[in-house]
């Protein structure tokens, strides 16, 4: 098992500028681009950091005592020991950063994103991901002046090789054909453009083009204060709004070392689990809707009941605005627990009956049972959540890095075998039951006391004033939570204590779409829709 003590010995062998350990126990090393490949090799192959969770670049112009123009941060995860490791690379404008796609294929899109946002050069040709090709504005640079964007050309199908010798047996690729699913096709539904290559029956390759809803959300957050950011981030995925709100509050609470009251922790757990149930029901509804099965209405009816519960608690259907820094806005209202118990029993009973009905239909099992994804693929592409657990990997932040008092709650993490859409369906269904189990335990042992930390029990202006005078560490900090579709969180850096200097949003949908070609390999055209629905891709999470 890897230990940080051994790591201290290892790092003396490698050249490095400086290293430190933050208050969350995460290790950070700061290096120069020339050492990056060697460090990645050690981290990936020797130290077991097999997953690149996130990568963020920042323009250091205006930061006191900065010696270089940019800083790139690679946030790595060791899934066995649950440790996290940050490699920071200081880069000058003229320098070329070695690409790390040979260690982490997921880095492909992440490098493209940093290249187009900041103009950082990597050691391989890169073209735009979220913005039109050939744009020269580099929007995340601090002095960026954005004028008119160039108009992007249409995605073209790659050229197929032709049979060099017609007299021989048919060359397999000769029968391949590329099919284009535009942004408004019934398959992609405005999420992305997709070119899929069929053999000609099954999918053999595909290419995804994203960025159609790119609003520059991360850039927008750099001009907002902490409390404004809290309002905005909840809208990244409206279906799981409490996740992003709580993740942002937790980021600040961790940085300022604020301990929130136990009752607030309990209510946050209840909110997170209710949002998980609602989002899983939405995804299962989408799967059955894609298969044109009449049962889809039943899942939406069940979700409405959950939304009613959330609305009764905080006044907003999806749980918007229930979080505040230092706790939660409202306590559970009188009679809420009794109502929850009745709805919980009703939904559990209904779900069992619906599952029996779906399971008895060949159409359901057959359509969802194709297209296996291996655990190795999930790791390579940085996939988390039900899509990863369906491949057989037992990893859930609620168990591996428990926050609040998840470690005291008795619940199981369902794990699949084959990584098919059917496995993902079963995992989501089981997670609904487990979430009910968690909420029931929490409300049975609901702690007494206040719902906001005493020092932060202030009105909006006073709270803003308090936060602006707080001493906040100016180092990178990552906070992630287990959202319904996977790990969601923020990699942040502060320069002063009023606005974030850089916010990188970690969303589960981004790696899922990058890995889409692996998920649909071997599927037939009529199976694509339900497979896509089972992944729970959220467009706003994708386009930042």
């Amino acid at each position, binding site marked *: 098992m890897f230990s940080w003590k051994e790591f201290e010995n290892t790092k003396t062998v490698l050249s490095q500028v400086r290293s430190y350990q933050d208050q969350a126990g995460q290790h950070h090393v700061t290096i120069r681009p020339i050492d990056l490949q060697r460090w990645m090799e050690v981290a990936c192959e020797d130290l077991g950091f097999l997953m690149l969770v996130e990568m963020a670049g920042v323009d250091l112009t205006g930061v006191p005592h900065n010696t270089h123009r940019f800083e790139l941060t690679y946030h790595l995860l060791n899934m066995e020991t649950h440790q996290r490791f940050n490699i920071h690379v200081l880069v000058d404008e003229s320098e070329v950063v070695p690409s790390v796609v040979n260690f982490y294929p997921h880095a492909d899109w992440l490098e493209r994103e940093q290249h187009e946002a900041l103009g950082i050069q990597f050691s391989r040709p890169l073209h735009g991901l979220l913005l039109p090709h050939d744009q020269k504005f580099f929007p995340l640079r601090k002095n960026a002046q954005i004028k008119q964007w160039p108009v992007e050309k249409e995605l073209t199908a790659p050229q197929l090789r032709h049979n060099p010798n017609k007299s021989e047996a048919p060359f397999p690729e000769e029968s391949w054909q590329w099919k284009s699913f535009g942004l408004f096709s019934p398959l992609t539904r405005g999420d992305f453009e997709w070119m899929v290559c069929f053999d000609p029956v099954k999918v053999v390759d595909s290419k995804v083009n994203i960025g*159609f809803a790119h609003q520059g959300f991360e850039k927008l957050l750099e001009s907002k204060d902490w409390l404004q950011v809290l309002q905005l981030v909840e809208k990244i995925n409206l279906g799981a709004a409490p996740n992003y709100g709580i993740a942002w509050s937790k980021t600040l609470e961790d940085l300022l070392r604020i301990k929130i009251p136990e009752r607030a922790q309990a209510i946050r757990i209840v909110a997170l689990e209710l949002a998980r149930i609602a989002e899983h029901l939405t995804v299962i509804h989408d799967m059955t809707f894609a298969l044109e099965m009449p049962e889809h209405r039943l899942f939406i009816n069940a979700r409405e009941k959950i939304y009613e519960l959330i609305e009764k608690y905080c006044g907003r259907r999806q749980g918007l605005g229930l979080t505040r820094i230092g706790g939660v806005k409202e306590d559970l209202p009188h009679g809420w627990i009794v109502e929850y118990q009745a709805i919980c029993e009703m939904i559990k009973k209904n779900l069992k009956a619906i599952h029996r009905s779906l399971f008895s239909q060949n159409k359901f099992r057959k359509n969802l049972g194709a297209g296996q994804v291996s655990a190795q693929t999930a790791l390579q592409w940085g996939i988390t959540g039900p899509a990863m657990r369906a491949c057989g990997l037992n990893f859930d932040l609620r168990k591996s890095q428990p926050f609040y008092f998840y470690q005291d709650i008795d619940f199981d993490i369902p794990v699949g075998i084959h990584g098919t859409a059917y496995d993902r369906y079963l995992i989501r269904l089981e997670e609904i039951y487990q979430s009910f189990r968690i909420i029931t335990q929490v409300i049975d042992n609901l702690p007494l006391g206040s719902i906001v930390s005493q020092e932060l029990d202030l009105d909006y202006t006073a709270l803003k004033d308090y936060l602006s005078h707080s001493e906040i560490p100016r180092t990178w900090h990552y906070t992630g939570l287990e959202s319904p579709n996977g790990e969601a969180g923020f990699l942040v850096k502060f320069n002063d204590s009023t606005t974030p200097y850089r916010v990188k949003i970690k969303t589960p949908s981004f790696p899922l779409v990058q890995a889409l070609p692996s998920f649909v390999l071997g599927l037939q055209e009529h199976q694509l829709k339900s497979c896509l629905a089972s992944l729970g891709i959220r467009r706003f999470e994708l386009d930042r």
Partner: protein
Amino acid sequence: MSKKIIPVLKIYCLCQPLLMTEWRSILSDKFAHSLPINLELTDDPSQASVIAWDGMISAKMQRLLPEIEHMLKGKTLLVMGEAQTLLKDHPFVRIFEAVENAPQLTGWSVLPEELLESLMSCYQKSSHV
């Protein structure tokens, strides 16, 4: 005895990342029967009579504007006008200038009741054209 035929209003949601979860709610038993028409969400814009759109044009979406304008011909457009005020003068996006009298949704967080109300005005508009 003649059987009453209930008209069907088919809706295509064009790129609405914010509201996507809420559109499904109108299919639930709680809301589906609250209007004198049947509502159906469709994935095929050619079949829809109402196109619901947030009206946001990103840098990459510029290329698709002619396609969108073609899609809107003969349909009723439902836009999220007020919700986009945050993005006014935003350097990354511009807002589609909706046709006059297009039914509008208000606010960032739209309730299913508000969706139904605006869909009813879409239905009235489309049935009078």
